[in-house]
């Protein structure tokens, strides 16, 4: 079966603008807030959002870091796939800051749990919030919910939501694949 397009480039652009304004509204000049994008799939979303924030709020101190959660995952030696690590780049302190974690799709919540553990290696933040482009509700395995959400998608466990970014895949789009492993 052909994958179903859930979001096109225009819709994604509208959502990213809205998310950026929400962040600016809540965090003003980002003096005490940092964005940490989860590698690899949250990285482009994090970059886009921070670019938009820089566009709309010129006087800001926004810092963005990238967190790899591979070594903190709970499915090491349990899944067939061998996990491949990406780079972690956090060149500032998160002590007493508000951290906004950014990832493309929130599904079972296990990646976010790993990120919550991994972030502790870098200090004790004042607060951690979560921003995701897609929230696959009804499929959570852990009590984790987003604070900022692009859109909610109802999907079955055997379906897969894939986010494409023009940086890698020519166009911005989100597809729902049926029965994909």
């Amino acid at each position, binding site marked *: 079966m052909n994958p179903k397009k859930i979001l096109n480039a225009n819709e994604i652009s509208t959502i990213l603008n809205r998310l950026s304004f929400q962040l600016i509204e809540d965090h003003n000049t980002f003096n005490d807030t940092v964005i940490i994008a989860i590698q690899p799939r949250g990285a482009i979303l994090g970059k886009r959002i921070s670019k938009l924030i820089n566009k709309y709020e010129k006087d800001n101190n926004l810092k963005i870091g990238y967190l790899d959660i591979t070594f903190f995952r709970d499915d090491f030696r349990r899944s067939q796939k061998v996990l*491949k690590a990406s780079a972690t780049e956090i060149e500032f302190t998160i002590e007493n800051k508000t951290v906004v974690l950014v990832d493309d799709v929130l599904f079972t919540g296990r990646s976010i749990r790993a990120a919550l553990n991994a972030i*502790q290696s870098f*200090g004790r933040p004042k607060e951690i919030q979560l921003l995701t482009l897609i929230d696959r509700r009804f499929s959570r395995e852990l009590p984790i919910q987003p604070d900022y959400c692009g859109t909610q998608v109802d999907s079955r466990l055997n379906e897969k939501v894939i986010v494409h970014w023009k940086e890698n895949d020519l166009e911005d789009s989100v597809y729902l694949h049926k029965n994909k492993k």
Partner: protein
Amino acid sequence: MSSLSVDNLLGIKYLNKQDLNLIFKTSDNFKEVINRKIKKVPSLRDVTIANLFFENSTRTKLSFELAQKRLSADVVNFSSSGSSISKGETLIDTVNNILSMKVDMIVMRHPSPGASVFLSKNIKSCIINAGDGTHEHPTQALLDAYSLIEKIGDLKSKNILIVGDIMHSRVALSNIFAYQKLGANVTVCGPKSLIPKSIESLNVNVETNFRQALKNSDAVNMLRIQNERMSESYFPSTREYVQQYGLTMPLLSSINKEIIVMHPGPINRGVEITSEVADSDQAIILDQVENGVAIRMAVMYLLAAKLK
């Protein structure tokens, strides 16, 4: 390629180039981890590792143990002094007894060449060779190559010189395999009595004139004279050896070329290398030690992924 082609790390001989590159890539990630404030990750929290050291070691043992602790593995240590080995227990029995206590991985150093290969044929467990006699010391060669790549980039067609006691050095053999798999040219240099006769079958160049050999090299790995493995005298005197094969600052600076100096440790200052050279900017000896922990984390992480 994101998994190793082997289930044990017995020697560099058994690895392919993809394996080496995967280990290096993974080490990059772990190097970042061990430079964090909190240097621990939970990856191996359900893995138990036994370190069996039938021969003395400082660096390798500490490095393995730190790597295991930073991966959150459970660690038990064993050294042959004060053990039942002196009561006549065989190696296979010793290891099988340890495995009965639900150990997942064995890191072993042993004075007999081939001990880890022998063990891997006789027991069911993941084995990492931490040095077996004069045979191989794979993690040392991995960290040597990794440190060198960090310094001078891709090793393809680079000329690497290994100097000293080639005959008794497991580091030499593992180094030769590793550098060759990465596309480098390897030359060995030392007194003829300390170069095995069959070394040319490994496709390495042999040079007895140290200065000449240095002139053509991008990096030099200085080995220690392994007196503990010698039953007879291989050269007239230490003084004569130092004169011919010792690396000194005047010698190094007389060659108009930036040569990277490596040493696997322990250093005999004033014998194979002078303090002036060992502490100079050209020496990457302490980088090697730092990278050793990251390399061993990568090796154990990648092998743990293959544990059944």
